[in-house]
């Protein structure tokens, strides 16, 4: 498949079309709104569903093939602030807290980007490891913690780190992912079977509605591009590509399939706009959400969803061929 075919395959899938429709809704000033409670219900559904499927897949997988990739993914995610922070601080000239805050977001992951990546693989008919949803849960937290530690180290003031770790672990997104994992692991294949018509079959349709809303949310922030300055815009487009390459290569080294390595790469490339913002807002209140949210939500997220995913898949061909 040519690069253009890949882009097209991605852009023309209903979830991504709905994302673009959401952007259009903002552009034509439609009065369409997804009520807040519905947005929350959809999130709860998606997170729990990912967790349960991941858990059931772990139980179904033979041996412990998932341990190495998991360890590597967690490590990678934990290390990311070590290079993103300096880039942001010294190349981007952000303040200590702002650099730390942005680093935290890029060192965590975006659940919806993950879903878009797996949707893409399914359309392509390319297989991937079933335990990947478990990765999402594990990759959300470490990078945030490391970034906070870094800021604490550098600025010298003792932020309430333990509090932050508790906040992020008990925060609803991580709680639902891990909780779903538990339900999936304990309930196993048999449990999954009973709830399959709810948690599995309608999943992609629900994702469509969710992405419709995400399109509106992201595009409402497009106008903030000007405020964040050119550096952060470039960062938001380039950094994910570099991260994707690192992630794909890591997957390759762990012996994962091409599909799995591509998903891992996309996860590494993605920036959190759910777990991270909530945690950072409380742990580093002096950091400007105008920087970290705009970069993660209005630049990197739409980029990954539309161009990034087919690009990373094409790039994964460099390692697998």
């Amino acid at each position, binding site marked *: 498949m040519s690069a253009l075919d890949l882009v097209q395959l991605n852009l023309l899938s209903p979830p991504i079309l709905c994302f673009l429709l959401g952007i259009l809704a903002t552009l034509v000033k439609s009065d369409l709104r997804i009520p807040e409670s519905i*947005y929350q219900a959809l999130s709860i559904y998606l997170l729990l569903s990912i967790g349960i499927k991941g858990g059931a897949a772990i139980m179904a997988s033979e041996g412990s093939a998932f341990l190495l990739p998991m360890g590597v993914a967690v490590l990678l995610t934990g290390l990311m602030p070590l290079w993103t922070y300096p880039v942001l601080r010294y190349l981007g000239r952000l303040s200590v807290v702002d650099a730390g805050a942005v680093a935290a977001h890029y060192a965590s992951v975006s659940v919806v980007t993950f879903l878009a990546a797996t949707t893409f693989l399914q359309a392509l008919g390319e297989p991937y490891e079933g335990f990947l949803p478990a990765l999402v849960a594990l990759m959300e937290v470490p990078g945030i913690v490391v970034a906070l530690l870094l800021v604490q180290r550098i600025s010298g003031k003792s932020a309430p780190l333990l509090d932050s770790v508790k906040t992020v672990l008990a925060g609803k*997104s991580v709680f639902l992912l891990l909780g779903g994992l538990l339900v999936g692991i304990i309930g196993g294949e048999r449990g999954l079977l009973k709830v399959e018509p709810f948690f599995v079959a309608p999943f992609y349709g629900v994702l469509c509605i969710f992405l419709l809303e995400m399109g509106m949310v992201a595009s409402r922030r497009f106008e903030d591009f000007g405020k964040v300055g050119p550096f952060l815009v470039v960062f938001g487009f380039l950094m994910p590509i570099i991260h994707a390459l690192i992630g794909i290569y890591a997957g390759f080294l762990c012996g994962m399939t091409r599909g799995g390595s591509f998903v891992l790469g996309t996860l590494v490339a993605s920036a959190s*706009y759910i777990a991270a913002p909530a945690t*950072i*807002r*409380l742990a580093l209140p*002096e950091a400007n959400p105008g920087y970290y*949210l705009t970069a993660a939500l209005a630049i990197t997220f739409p980029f990954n969803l539309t161009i990034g995913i087919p690009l990373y898949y094409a790039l994964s061909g460099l390692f697998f061929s």
Partner: protein
Amino acid sequence: MEPLPGMEKLKRVTIVAESVVSERIQEDVLRLGAKGYTTTHAEGRGSRGVRASEWEGHNVKLETIVTPEVAGKILKYMEDKYFQHFAVIAYTIDVEVIRAKKYR
């Protein structure tokens, strides 16, 4: 306007805050002496603009009826603790209540 017969004057403190800090503020308010409060979901526009994220929900408006002393304490605390970094506003209104001892 004269107070209605049998009623006493108290203060109602209103706080509008981004949701990420709303549960904390609820605890703060009780700790500072309020005997209760009422909250509603709210949205809003102000000078600071951006919030944590949509996933956190919008603003929460909290209203609590208290004595002037407690009102003063709450406003002071909001100013010290939240005004600088969080999207929070606070103000007071004079109210008249029956059975004021419920709020003391």
